[in-house]
């Protein structure tokens, strides 16, 4: 009746500090863990325009496909499994389905198909699953997760047939679906695409030049304020406020330098962790140029409505889940990595 109004959901922020030269650094594995990336934004201080090599990386992000009204059983199609799932990594995510509300589907690069279903759909499907972690009191959501590379899920196998008939005749699940494939690109998906209404999309790159940017000292700043500032720069929020301003009292935390120029680049779409890896490598090369300001930041946002969080763990949005990580790189190969995760989740890797 009268809950404590000042209570807020639990928050979790992990800060890693290490060096790329340290053999123990786990950046690449951590980058791989976040499967569904919606947006990557990079802040390059003291930079007017990105170098050609960096620009080419931005422009060469793998394109992705949107299929309208895809029946989900098509993902179990034998040819599709042969040509795409077994041959590399497929990223697939149901689009415009709201997690916690609709039935969502995700196909992960390791060949795992995950469905997040409401109670009625789960009962109709008739396939083994487990109750979702985000159920409150009553059991109203279920998660069905199958490994398509498993022997029981091979075409013709018992589990395969059961799921196929479940999706084909009991629960006719249809959603808009985003797909991308790592080494093969569109060619390996063509057979599936050709049967439905589809379109190809290039990740959208937007560049913004900023001037006279007040910035905090990245090494000493408190992580929360730093993240706030990075987000504000990314969202183009004005920092020049006085503390007595009516509208907003937001100011740059611990301001110490003013940058003449800065370049903020963001790429959005269904992006692959592989491309992010490439971008990180390229940024490290870029940092080696001697005349530059000594740091670069890279922020990666996960899909809000993806049903998997870090690794393969379940994700719920309404309880305050948002996955992103922010990588701060310095020219001496050291880095700071800030990982955030949703409320109920355990630590990211």
């Amino acid at each position: 009746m009268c809950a404590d109004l000042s209570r807020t959901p639990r928050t979790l922020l992990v800060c890693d500090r290490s060096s790329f030269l340290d053999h123990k650094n786990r950046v690449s594995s951590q980058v791989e863990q976040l499967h569904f990336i919606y947006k990557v934004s990079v802040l390059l201080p003291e930079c007017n325009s990105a170098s050609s090599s960096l620009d080419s990386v931005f422009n060469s992000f793998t394109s992705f496909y949107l299929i309208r009204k895809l029946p989900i059983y098509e993902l179990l199609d034998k040819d599709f499994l042969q040509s795409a799932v077994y041959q590399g990594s497929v990223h697939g995510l149901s689009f415009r389905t709201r997690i916690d509300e609709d039935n969502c589907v995700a196909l992960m690069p390791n060949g795992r198909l995950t469905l997040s279903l409401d109670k009625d759909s789960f009962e109709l499907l008739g396939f083994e699953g487990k109750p979702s972690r985000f159920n409150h009191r009553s059991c109203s959501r279920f998660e069905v997760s199958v490994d398509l590379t498993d022997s029981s899920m091979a075409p013709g196998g018992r589990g395969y047939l059961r799921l196929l008939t479940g999706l084909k005749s009991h629960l006719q699940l249809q959603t808009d679906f985003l797909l991308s494939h790592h080494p093969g690109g569109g060619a390996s998906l063509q057979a599936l695409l050709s049967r439905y209404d589809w379109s190809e999309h290039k990740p959208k790159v937007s560049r913004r030049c900023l001037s006279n940017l007040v910035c905090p000292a990245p090494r000493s700043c408190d992580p929360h304020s730093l993240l706030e500032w990075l987000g504000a720069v990314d969202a183009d929020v004005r920092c020049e406020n006085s503390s007595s301003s009516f509208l907003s009292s937001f100011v740059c935390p611990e301001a110490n330098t003013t940058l003449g120029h800065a370049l903020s680049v963001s790429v959005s779409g269904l992006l692959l962790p592989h491309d992010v890896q490439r971008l990180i490598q390229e940024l490290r090369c870029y940092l080696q140029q001697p005349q530059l300001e000594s740091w670069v930041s890279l922020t990666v946002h996960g899909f809000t409505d993806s049903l998997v969080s870090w690794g393969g763990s379940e994700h719920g949005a309404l309880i305050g889940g948002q996955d992103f990580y922010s990588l701060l790189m310095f020219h001496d190969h050291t880095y700071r990595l800030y990982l955030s995760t949703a409320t109920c989740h355990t630590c990211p890797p």
Partner: protein
Amino acid sequence: MDEAQIYTQIPHNLVKSLNVKPQSSSKAAAFTEAFLKNSLQKPSQYDLKDMLTHKAVILGYARPKKESAKRSSKKAKGLNARQKRKMKIFQIKPEHQRYELFLPLHELWRQYIVDLCGGLKPTSNPQFVQQKLLKADFHGAIITVVRSKCPSYVGTTGILVQEFKHVFKIITKENKLKVIPKRNSVFAIEINGFVSHIYGSKFEQRASERSAKKFKVRGTIDL
């Protein structure tokens, strides 16, 4: 009548014409006793003499007692549960668990439903059909589990062989006998294009008792 008169000797002139031999009184007494013994039917266990001295006895036909009839009616009431279990009356032998054996039952059931619903044309009112089906017997119907809390039941189809209070026993096309609890499942029954869904949780009743039960209309039904 005077007792002495009875026990008197038959007159000699009558002896010849009647052709009977006069008996001695002791013999006569023995005869009477024997005669009485024969003609009195049952109560041999009683002391005859005692009875004769104290009671009036009807000579002649006595009605057979009803005890035997009572016993037979008791027998007709049938076996108790333990006996049934012992005799495995309600268990279908493995060699009889064949789908095609039950197909005629299904045909019969089909006719029965069609008769019950007055022809069952595509034009007939679905609500009327449902009302009838609610009270009908389902032995022989082909039922399918549409929804269930337990995912492994979903999709099972077969002819309903036996219905108990809490379970349906069905035989599938693979000649497997399956026992499906009614609770937490929804069943579909198809006859001539009409598909009816049965919420098993609301159906937990014996077939015979169901016909007398009133079903309540509810807004929403959960499993």
